Structures are given as structure tokens and as C-alpha cells.
């Protein structure tokens, strides 16, 4: 654990306590952390180092820009986690895995990068309906519909929730859906 990451002074105790929290949150939302404990602790340590560097949990296996707006899609849990778990049984880093992998029926290995290469997709202003040109005019709706970009949770209310009740992504990960 303590090898190679010199900066940030993240202690083993802090990493373990975040591990416990993430594990509980994952299980209660139907997700699973990688059962390889040392591997998982190493990734969580990386996330904590990134939090100290950038102020948020930038994905430990991707190079963050350090500008939150540009990194929103790769703040853990990233926008790509759920489709990657569905297709490969693991997220890109291997922090989250499917039930199959947890049960040892499938192995988590290197998977291809789903995130569009740099400069390919400019993150839109997701909070405003006008930024989503494909939306039909449903001005008769009593409430706008918000979609969590991480797990797909939908809710109809004035504003998205502070934290997604399913996957715990923060409010800024929601987009206007209708």
C-alpha cells in the first residue's frame, strides 16, 4: 500500500474507513466492490490522493484534467461504470464488479476504455433543458424529469436530489431528461 504514492499522506486507516463506507453503500445499492481487498484498497487510496489534489474523486486509472467541469464524467462512480459492469463484469479500474465476478464465476481483467477520447465529446450544460436539443416540448409537465447519468435513476421534481438514492452520485451528475 504505502509504496509509490508519496503525496497526499493518505493513511491506511483513512483508506480502510472509506472502504467500509463504500462497501456498505455499494451493497445497499446493488453494487459490489472488487473482492480482491488489497487491489480495492489501492484504488480507494488513489481516489483519496486525487481528492486531495483536485477536490473530487477523480477516477484513479484515468488522467484527470483537474477542471471539475471537464472531469465530471470520470468522478467515481463514473458515467461508464454501469455499462462496463453489464458488458464486462467490471468497471474500467476494477473497483466495482458484477455478481458473477464476486462469485468467482468470471474474472475481472483489462477492459477497453468507454470514455470518448479527449476532445471528442464536450460535456454539455446538463442542468438546462435548452442544452438538450432533442427534447420534445413538454412544457405542460408539472415537473421536469431528471436522470442520473451514473445509474439511470429518474425522478420528477424541481431540482435533482443532492445525492442519487440508488448510486450516491452527487447532484451535478444529473441531467435534464424531460
Amino acid at each position: 500500500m504505502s509504496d509509490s504514492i508519496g503525496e497526499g499522506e493518505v493513511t491506511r486507516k483513512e483508506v480502510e474507513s472509506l472502504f467500509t463506507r463504500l462497501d456498505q453503500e455499494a451493497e445497499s445499492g446493488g453494487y459490489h466492490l472488487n473482492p480482491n481487498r488489497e487491489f480495492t484498497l489501492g484504488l480507494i487510496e488513489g481516489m483519496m490522493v486525487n481528492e486531495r489534489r483536485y477536490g473530487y474523486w477523480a477516477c484513479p486509472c484515468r488522467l484527470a484534467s483537474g477542471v471539475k467541469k471537464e472531469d465530471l464524467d470520470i468522478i467515481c462512480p463514473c458515467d461508464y461504470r454501469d455499462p462496463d459492469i453489464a458488458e464486462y463484469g467490471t468497471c474500467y479500474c476494477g473497483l466495482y464488479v458484477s455478481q458473477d465476478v464476486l462469485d468467482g464465476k468470471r474474472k475481472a481483467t483489462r477492459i477497453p476504455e468507454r470514455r470518448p477520447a479527449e476532445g471528442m465529446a464536450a460535456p454539455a450544460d446538463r442542468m438546462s433543458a435548452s442544452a438538450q436539443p432533442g427534447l420534445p416540448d413538454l412544457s405542460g409537465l408539472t415537473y421536469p424529469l431528471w436522470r442520473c447519468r451514473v445509474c439511470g435513476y429518474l425522478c420528477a421534481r424541481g431540482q435533482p436530489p443532492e445525492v442519487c438514492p440508488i448510486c450516491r452520485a452527487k447532484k451535478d451528475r444529473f441531467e435534464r431528461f424531460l
Partner: protein
Amino acid sequence: MEFQRVEGTDKGKIVLYALSTCMWCRMAKNLLKDMGVCYEYIDVDTLSAEEKVTVKQEIKKWNPGGSYPTLVINEKECVSGFDEAEIREKIK
């Protein structure tokens, strides 16, 4: 910008582009160490903004997706991502 050099048997010029926070990158470092080969690595996330731009361009020459780890062997071959079998196969 300084590459870290790990001593070992000379198998040519072996360069690893890594992130300090990434476990796959750490596994690549550990594998190269276990194999006992001499190699150089750089943790791109610890560089300055200007250095990052330069290094990212270099990485893209070998691995257009620009993902980590990227291992360049003898300025000829590349392994993108951690694949133990492929790394062992290409470094003989």
C-alpha cells in the same frame, strides 16, 4: 521531466507511462520488477501541466486512446493496458 529508472537485465529500451494512482499501472511496475528487466517509468499524473501535454502526445503516437498504463518496447512495440501475457511475450 524525469523518468525513474529501475535497474535490471538489459532487454532494450523499455518505457512505461503510468499513473501513480492506478492499480493496473502498479501491477505493470511490479511485473517488470519481477521479470528483473531494466526499465524507465513516469507517473504522468504527477507532472506539470506543460509536461502532461508533451507526454500525452508521445503516448498517443503508440496508443491512440491515450490510456494507462502504456508500455513502449524498443520504440517499436506497445502494450496498452496491463496484460501480463502480452508483456511477457513482447519482452523476451
